[in-house]
């Protein structure tokens, strides 16, 4: 979890994949989830802009920030009308491999900020998404596009020279204000590069979208840069601004102010700011623990059975001890040499050694189990009347207390 993509460790993470439980930048998200059919099903969503570690679930319209559940509750917990009355929208997630245009559609609130300036033109050349798929191995800055999509796009680009001539046929209202504010389109080559970098099927299949896509592409290119590319490529600026909103809202972009010279200086800054990525060993550990639950259950069984055995022997020992205590006073009476008030002191050493030897002999024949010495007495005891487990005199009345007279 954290600020930096867990796959490349270079760019800032943008989306969170719930199935993989990982924060990824857009390039890695595309690479990872286009690999096979199973990974394409994974659901990804934006990352909370407060904690940068959990998936965002709501978007606070007033604060223009995407928040996870915890940050939303903690941020809007105050009962003052200001904070708790913020309007919030639910955030969508996506699956598959959408293009930038589609992502802008899903998260259309990102386009609402009029933040496009001259910087767009400068940023155009350095696109964020580096698609490493074999068929799309393009250098975003290069002009050697071999994709027919790029060719088609470039051809279309030629027809759009001035922004004012752009067709506003879009059925998506969010694009409208953007289109009017857009800068003149940047050189076609860079746009073509962008198209090559993104999914190519989108523009081949849908003729309706041609004009629309052009607008959307222009829109999304610039916005993409603003939204995703800028921070991805220039995390130092992000840190400089100290404003997470600048990531999506891009209020503070001033093209002239951005400088590349500060990379080294701010790298140290970025290192200090970046949250440490949690090691995957913890995940591995949890995986191991889950896999070995079966062996744990076996161990538990063994432990349990051993416990029960030990309980039994312990019980026996305790019973034997009690009997021993009862027995020992009788032994004491029957063995004069052990009696302390014995006047004979002269032969204590010999008598003592004799006594010890006798004790050792008798110890071998000890038996700590229930033994009835006089059967007749047992018969009598079974017949006797008892109250609360104690013998009572048969004639007297014992209702509750077998000891009616107690003197304290």
């Amino acid at each position: 979890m954290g600020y930096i993509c867990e796959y490349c460790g270079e760019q800032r993470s943008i989306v969170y994949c719930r199935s993989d439980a990982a924060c990824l930048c857009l390039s890695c998200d595309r690479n990872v989830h286009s690999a096979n059919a199973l990974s394409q099903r994974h659901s990804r969503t934006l990352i909370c802009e407060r904690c940068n570690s959990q998936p965002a679930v709501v978007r606070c319209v007033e604060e223009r920030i995407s928040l996870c559940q915890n940050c939303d509750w903690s941020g809007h917990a105050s009962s003052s009308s200001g904070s708790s009355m913020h309007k919030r929208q639910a955030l969508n997630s996506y699956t598959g491999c959408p293009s930038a245009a589609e992502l802008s559609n899903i998260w259309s609130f990102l386009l609402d900020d009029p933040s496009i300036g001259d910087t767009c033109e400068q940023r155009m050349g350095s696109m964020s998404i580096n698609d490493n798929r074999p068929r799309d191995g393009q250098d975003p800055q290069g002009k050697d596009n071999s994709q027919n999509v790029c060719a088609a796009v470039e051809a279309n680009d030629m027809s759009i020279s001035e922004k004012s001539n752009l067709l506003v046929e879009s059925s998506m209202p969010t694009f409208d204000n953007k289109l009017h504010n857009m800068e003149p389109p940047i050189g076609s080559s860079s746009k073509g590069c962008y198209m090559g970098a993104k999914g190519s099927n989108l523009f081949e299949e849908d003729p309706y979208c041609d004009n629309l896509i052009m607008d959307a592409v222009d829109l999304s290119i610039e916005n993409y840069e603003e939204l995703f590319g800028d921070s991805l490529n220039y995390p130092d600026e992000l840190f400089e601004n100290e404003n997470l909103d600048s990531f999506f809202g891009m209020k503070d972009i001033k093209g002239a102010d951005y400088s590349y010279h500060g990379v080294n200086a701010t790298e140290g800054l970025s290192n200090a700011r970046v949250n440490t990525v949690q090691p995957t060993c913890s995940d591995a550990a949890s995986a191991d623990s889950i896999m070995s639950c079966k062996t744990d259950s076996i161990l538990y069984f063994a432990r349990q059975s051993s416990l029960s055995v030990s309980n039994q022997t312990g019980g026996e020992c305790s019973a034997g001890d009690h009997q021993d205590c009862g027995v020992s006073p009788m032994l004491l009476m029957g063995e004069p040499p052990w009696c302390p008030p014995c006047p004979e002191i002269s032969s204590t050493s010999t008598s003592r050694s004799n006594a010890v030897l006798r004790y050792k002999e008798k110890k071998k024949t000890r038996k700590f189990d229930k033994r009835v010495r006089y059967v007749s007495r047992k018969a009598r005891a079974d017949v006797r009347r008892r109250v609360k487990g104690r013998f009572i005199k048969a004639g007297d009345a014992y209702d509750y207390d077998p000891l009616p007279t107690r003197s304290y």
Partner: protein
Amino acid sequence: MRTLCDVCESAAAILFCAADEAALCRACDEKVHMCNKLASRHVRVGIAKPNEVPRCDICENSPAFFYCEVDGSSLCLQCDMMVHVGGK
């Protein structure tokens, strides 16, 4: 009736990936999960054969549904209800 692999739909599935929510055979599991380090982190559990499913410890009749860590035993639905909730 054996569960089929969700990817190739030809081989019998022996593993289940909770993150992908898919049953996989050995070959597809290697293909899917060995291609990048994020997928290798997925936890996969084995799927029992239909005739070898573990039975409840108490009644030895129904297939085991829950495993109680405290008791250390696998229970079917009815026995689990009896033991942990109490029944008449």
